């Protein structure tokens, strides 16, 4: 155990975590030239394209330091707030963390929130000032920021560049010298932490774990404490670029496990693996069943594809345990599913994966958070509202509670005013304001989660000219004034366009929704009135004028192929529309509420 080091890299998005991980793999000879590829640990296509780590990953490296051979386990953490629970479990599997700070950007919201997670878990922090090669790097000032944040000595900060490879050897030396080796007792009953799982279509679910005490052996009978299920450890091994089967993984080390589990749901991140016959008495603390934060309907564009959509969602769930869904039906859209997501990014990823991996074109309805409603008749019983149609009739409603979060925003002092007015518009209440340096301010707000869902990130970026970073954590439910805004097309309510909105914003949002829909819904051969209503009261209206002319006058030799292509494009667009009554509604109109300020 003396020669094992378990560490993770924590950083704000884009500060260079993936690039630096690549350099560590190079320097330890963990990849051959042939295997080299940028952002090696980001294995999903989507991760590479979006440049963010969605899943956690782990890799083992060998490193010879001062004549001794070490095993380094690098556990990469997801880079987005939607996945913060997974980040916390990855951190819990380590003794140390590299805290990467971009030498031009300095400390950002995610740097801080991840740092707190690491400190809660007593990790040794190695601060790394990254991207020192950048002409815009500002090492002196950023060093001061880091010193202020950590209370460390400036000499403890390692200067590095993931791009040039500068400083990588110093980082590796620090990992060995400063991060303590794992403690643990091989002779105690097995106690291992699950920090991630990956679905492999051929081998079932691969569980990634860190052994705290005891050891896990091939063909051992093991038990997952939270789910209570037992399995045979068909295969255990360490995670190299390829998997490396072993007969035993001992306390302090990191590895993978294959048991023939077919559904990701059975493997819960944060769960404890123990021996089936001689179980540990101490499950690892901090386990939580991850709860979805955002709910939306997912419907097939073509009603006939419902069963296929179900099959695709089930397959997705096999490898994404945080996706939950139940069947629901909508008068407008027919049969579909109410799905729960960790956040908006997670929702986008699911939608994109459905399209890419399963060729399913879907309509996603307006997302909402999960509310608690209480009726006069039964003022203590929670009615869970995950769908606008679940909201009890206003006359029977005693009260509604909505989820709140604590938001952490770091911005330049120039933008404090803008950020504050945005957060106040979003019903936020400021709870704290700290000047990290004269130019950089940390702001804390208590805010309704629902307001983050509706175009918050984009607006925050705009009002701060990009100089604001943001992170949040849930802080419970609070009483709220909620109404359901319905949309009527051609005087017919379209349930899939309904949205739950705070009463004070309903008028304004109803108006903007009508305007946005007018823009998005193509004109048809008849006038289409659009109305927004709360109950029977119409709060806004617009009309999509009938299409009178839909033909180009000239169609001679040169026009034919140009025009054919134009009409083909139009037809393709129509394939993504849904006929509701006699109105055709494009896919994106169902999400219009999210883009009201564009």
């Amino acid at each position: 155990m003396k020669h094992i080091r378990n560490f993770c890299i924590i950083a704000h998005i884009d500060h260079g975590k993936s690039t630096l991980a690549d350099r560590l793999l190079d320097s330890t000879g963990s990849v051959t030239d042939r295997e080299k590829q940028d952002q090696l640990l980001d294995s999903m296509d989507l991760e590479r394209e979006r440049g963010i780590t969605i899943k956690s990953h782990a890799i083992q490296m060998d490193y010879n330091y001062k004549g001794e051979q070490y095993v380094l386990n690098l556990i990469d953490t997801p880079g987005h707030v939607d996945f913060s629970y997974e980040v916390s479990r990855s951190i819990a599997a380590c003794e140390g963390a590299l805290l990467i700070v971009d030498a031009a950007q300095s400390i950002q919201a995610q740097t801080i929130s991840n740092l707190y997670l690491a400190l809660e878990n007593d990790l040794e922090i190695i601060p790394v000032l990254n991207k020192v090669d950048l002409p815009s790097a500002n090492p002196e000032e950023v060093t001061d920021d880091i010193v202020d944040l950590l209370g460390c000595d400036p000499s403890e900060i390692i200067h590095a560049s993931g791009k040039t490879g500068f400083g990588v050897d110093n980082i590796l030396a620090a990992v060995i010298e400063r991060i303590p080796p794992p403690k643990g007792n091989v002779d105690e009953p097995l106690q291992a932490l699950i920090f991630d799982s990956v679905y492999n279509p051929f081998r079932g679910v691969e569980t990634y774990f860190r052994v705290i005490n005891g050891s896990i052996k091939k063909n051992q009978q093991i038990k997952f404490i939270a789910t209570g299920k037992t399995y045979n450890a068909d295969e255990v091994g360490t995670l190299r670029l390829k998997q490396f089967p072993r007969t035993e993984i001992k306390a302090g080390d990191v590895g993978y496990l294959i048991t023939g589990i077919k559904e990701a749901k059975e493997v819960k991140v944060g769960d404890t693996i123990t021996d089936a016959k001689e179980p540990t008495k101490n499950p690892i603390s901090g386990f939580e069943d991850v709860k979805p934060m955002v709910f939306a309907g997912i419907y097939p564009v073509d009603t006939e594809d419902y069963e296929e959509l179900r099959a695709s969602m089930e397959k997705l769930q096999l490898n994404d345990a945080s996706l939950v869904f139940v069947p629901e039906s909508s008068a407008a859209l027919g049969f579909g599913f109410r799905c729960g997501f960790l956040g908006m990014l997670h929702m986008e990823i699911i939608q994109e994966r459905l399209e890419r991996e399963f060729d399913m074109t879907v309509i996603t309805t307006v997302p909402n958070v999960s509310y608690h409603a209480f009726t006069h008749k039964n003022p203590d019983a929670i009615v869970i509202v995950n769908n606008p149609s679940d909201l009890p009739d206003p006359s029977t409603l005693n009260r509604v509670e909505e989820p709140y979060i604590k938001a952490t925003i770091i911005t330049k002092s120039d933008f404090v005013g803008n950020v504050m007015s945005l957060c106040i518009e979003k019903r936020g209440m400021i709870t704290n304001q700290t000047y990290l340096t004269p130019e950089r301010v940390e702001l804390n707000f208590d805010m309704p989660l629902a307001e983050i869902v509706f175009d918050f990130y984009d607006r925050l970026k705009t009002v701060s000219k990009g100089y604001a970073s943001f992170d949040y954590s849930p802080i419970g439910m609070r009483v709220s004034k909620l109404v359901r805004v319905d949309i009527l097309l051609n005087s017919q309510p379209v349930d899939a366009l309904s949205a739950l909105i705070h009463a004070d914003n309903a008028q304004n949002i109803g108006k903007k929704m009508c305007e946005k829909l007018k823009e998005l819904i193509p004109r048809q051969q008849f006038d289409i009135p659009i109305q927004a209503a709360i109950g029977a009261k119409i709060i806004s209206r617009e009309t999509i004028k009938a299409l009178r002319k839909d033909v180009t006058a000239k169609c001679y030799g040169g026009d034919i192929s140009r025009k054919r292509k134009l009409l083909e494009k139009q037809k393709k667009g129509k394939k993504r529309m849904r006929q509701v009554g006699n109105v055709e509604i494009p896919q994106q109109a169902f999400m219009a509420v999210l883009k009201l300020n564009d």
Partner: protein
Amino acid sequence: MSGIYIHIPFCKQACHYCDFHFSTSINKKSELVNALVKELEFRKDEFKNQVVETIYFGGGTPSLLTIDELRLLIDTVYAHYNVVSNPEITLEANPDDLTNQQINKLANTPINRLSIGVQSFFEKDLKLMNRAHNAEEAKQCLEEATIRFDNISVDLIYGIPGLTNENWLKNIETALSFNIPHISSYALTVEPKTALETFIKKGIVDDVDEEQAQAQFYLLVEELEASGFVHYELSNFGKPGFFSKNNSAYWQGKPYLGIGPSAHSFNGNQRSWNVSNNSKYIKSIDKSILPSETETLTQMDKYNEYVMTGLRTIWGVSIQKVTNEFGDDFTKHLLNQSQLFINQQLLYIDNEILKVTQKGKFLSDGIASELFKVN
């Protein structure tokens, strides 16, 4: 049966609405004509097995060519292609070029059809569109042209901002008073990056109005049909025997050879088009390289084109032909997709031929798109 289209990319001045390919600097004209001659010569093999029935000078403004230049081009066609004995040879011409003297000269060439860009008989409309001629010239040239040519087409534009229905009817009547056998008529369309678009954006000119265009379209159809014209294509009306043969070829999927910058060609399977730049065109032809791009049509492309062009014409979309050329799947698709429009009385089936109704005519692109097959 096939046609040759020759593009003459010059105009005296730019009409505000126009997005065609032309240049107002006429100094390259003779160089260009030589290039056209050369292109005609070296593409002759593409048309080895074709009989040329129509020759069409389009533009731009082909009436800017001298009689000698026109003759040279026609002679070149005759020298290298197999031309029928009574070809339709059309010259697009603008009224300001059609002086009495020029009309007489043209009548002595093999050109036997004039397509005259009148657009309107009102000064106000002509100014708004920045046409090079005035209302008087329009009437004058028609008077003379009708003496020397039987086969004349007049272009008229409707939906011009400020053009009342009353004035539109007057325009139609004026054209009819010359007893011409063919009228092409277009709705004024605001194309991207034209002067017209800019003026509308700046508020200098009122935007075009769909309701006005629709009303004027149906006035036109009514008036011309009452006067014995057949509405044989969305924008074209002809007395029996006077349909444009050249243009009909486009809508019936017949092959044509397009000569000159920006001209398009079709050989039944491939569409190709020359570069839209006069100097590049001349330079390339000079090196005996055809500056063109080609696209090969798939069955689906061909079906889509047939539906799109067919619906614009009185020949419609023949269900039999779809079955024969594309197969049952396409027929099934076509019939399925048409049903909704048949119910809405925008399409109808007459003798196994699918056509747009009067009501559907002004919506026919949208309808065609719905009948398309796409991946």
